[in-house]
């Protein structure tokens, strides 16, 4: 089951070489750059939450439990007949759990995955419509695992009624899915909302939802709870409008804005899927995200995970922890979790040093910005074989530094030990606009295939920090002291 979990050994085993932008092994030689310009009390809340901190997503894992499947609104991008299409992958149904079963599952995962830092209730359905089950789950888990953070995701309709309960359960993070601040646009996204025992359709329903969302956002912010806004980017419906949304939620105190692309596969049976409403292309998403960069903090590392996902972002161990595989009572030992956190603290300080060194290197280069893709299993390092990559992390590099841009999903190129032409097409589509791919290792054939498509594959920096390697490559390729191209 541990195939996707980053073992501690892979974080500690191979240190980058000390030349150039190499790391510093001592934890005492610098503070973490990950905190940026954040006040300390906020950094403390987000630093171990993979969905709220881009840095944390390299180190920590989350799990979702599907305990509250009922919903109080209908969205055109969601089909609950099967599963919520935007929270999951097609064809895999969620296991619906009672709060007791969910608590048992959390303990089993905590015993096997020391990276686990967050438990979320995020659908299918709305966590605050069927609120009794959500809070009962938290009540059970907080007795067993006091160091875990809770997190909920909601459409906001019931949110104003539950502010006190959220505070009582020490929930630091709430995500509201908010696609519009204009009821006229909302009417095109939400066919109905169910409020106070009645179904409201069209603009009336959208207006109620909007007012409740803003009321909830304000109330949470007043209590010091961090609010992330998820917005689904629907081309032709709300794509340009999201600039207005960003400004509005920033004014109300939202901490983070996560713009995610619409998933509208006809096979999911959603209203958008069936009507042919398309999702945005990666380039369109990036263009919008770049326009939003001056507003509320933007999240770019979201993986749109399924409602019962388990593991690091971008991976899913949920099939290893289905109810029938859970032990009656898990033997839980808190020591590996404590050790893991200790290692991560050291690793963070080390990586911060490496990033600062990388920054110095690229400053010498005078060339247009390059988009590069990286194969990684986590830890912020280039540590995955090209053939095993299910997704690529995309970085932009220029003389100002190396910045995380987003991720692109690709079917695993290498399955059963060989790659085939079709898979390569999927990978090439995912790499559109990318000049260079960094990987721990790549075979000669795929390397040549990529070359034929105009993409250079580089495996000269295995297990090094991503930013360090990309910066050194950029400085060498485009810097004043040109060495290799």
């Amino acid at each position, binding site marked *: 089951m541990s195939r996707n979990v980053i073992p501690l050994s892979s974080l500690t085993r191979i240190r980058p070489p000390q030349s150039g932008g190499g790391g510093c092994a001592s934890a005492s030689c610098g503070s973490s750059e990950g905190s940026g310009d954040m006040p300390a009390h906020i950094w403390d809340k987000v630093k171990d939450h993979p969905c709220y901190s881009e840095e944390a997503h390299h180190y920590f894992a989350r799990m979702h439990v599907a305990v509250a*499947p*009922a919903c109080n609104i209908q969205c055109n991008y969601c089909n*609950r007949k099967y599963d919520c299409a935007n929270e999951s992958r097609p064809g895999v149904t969620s296991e619906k759990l009672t709060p007791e079963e969910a608590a048992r599952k959390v303990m089993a995962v905590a015993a096997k995955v020391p990276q686990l830092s967050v438990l979320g209730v995020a659908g299918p359905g709305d966590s605050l*419509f*069927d609120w009794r089950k959500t809070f009962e789950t938290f009540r059970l888990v907080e007795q067993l695992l006091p160091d875990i953070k809770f997190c909920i995701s909601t459409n906001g309709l019931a949110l104003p009624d539950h502010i006190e309960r959220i505070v009582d359960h020490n929930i630091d993070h709430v995500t509201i899915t908010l696609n519009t601040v204009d009821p006229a646009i909302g009417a095109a996204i939400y066919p109905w909302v*169910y409020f106070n025992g009645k*179904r409201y359709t069209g603009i009336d329903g959208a207006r109620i939802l909007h007012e409740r969302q803003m009321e909830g956002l304000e109330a949470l912010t007043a209590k010091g709870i961090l609010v992330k806004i998820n917005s689904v980017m629907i081309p032709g419906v709300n794509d340009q409008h999201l600039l207005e949304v960003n400004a509005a939620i920033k004014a109300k105190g939202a901490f983070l804005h996560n713009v995610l692309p619409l998933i509208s596969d006809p096979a999911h049976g959603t209203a958008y899927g069936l009507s042919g409403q398309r999702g945005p292309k990666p380039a369109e998403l990036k263009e919008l995200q770049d326009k939003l960069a001056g507003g509320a903090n933007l999240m770019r590392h979201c993986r749109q995970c399924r409602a019962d996902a388990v593991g690091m972002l971008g991976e899913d161990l949920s099939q290893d922890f289905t109810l029938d595989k859970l032990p009656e009572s898990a033997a839980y030992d808190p020591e590996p979790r404590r050790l893991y956190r200790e290692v991560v603290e050291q690793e963070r300080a080390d990586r911060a040093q490496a990033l600062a060194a990388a920054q110095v290197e690229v400053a010498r280069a005078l060339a247009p910005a390059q988009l590069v893709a990286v194969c990684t299993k986590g830890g912020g390092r280039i540590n995955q074989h090209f053939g095993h990559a299910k997704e690529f992390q995309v970085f932009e590099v220029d003389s100002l530094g190396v910045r995380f841009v987003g991720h692109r999903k690709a079917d695993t190129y290498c399955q059963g030990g060989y790659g085939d032409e079709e898979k390569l097409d999927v990978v090439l589509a995912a790499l559109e606009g990318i000049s260079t791919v960094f990987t721990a290792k790549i075979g000669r054939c795929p390397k040549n295939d990529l070359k034929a498509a105009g993409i250079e594959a580089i495996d000269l920096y295995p297990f090094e920090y991503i930013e360090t390697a990309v910066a050194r490559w950029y400085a060498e390729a485009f810097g004043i002291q040109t060495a290799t191209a």
Partner: protein
Amino acid sequence: MALQIIASECTSCGACEFECPNAAISIKSDVYVIKASGCTECDGDAPKCQAVCPVEGCIVQG
């Protein structure tokens, strides 16, 4: 007069159960059922179970 749930359409989300003002809905094996003797069809108001059900045509006149 009572409403009924078409079992093949039910997603077992449970929204109707806690919205029913008469506590006439409960889960039987995998899906929800309406106890005919308890259902008042919400006494002339729009039935709440129908209003909240995400699947059109799942809750119908019995």
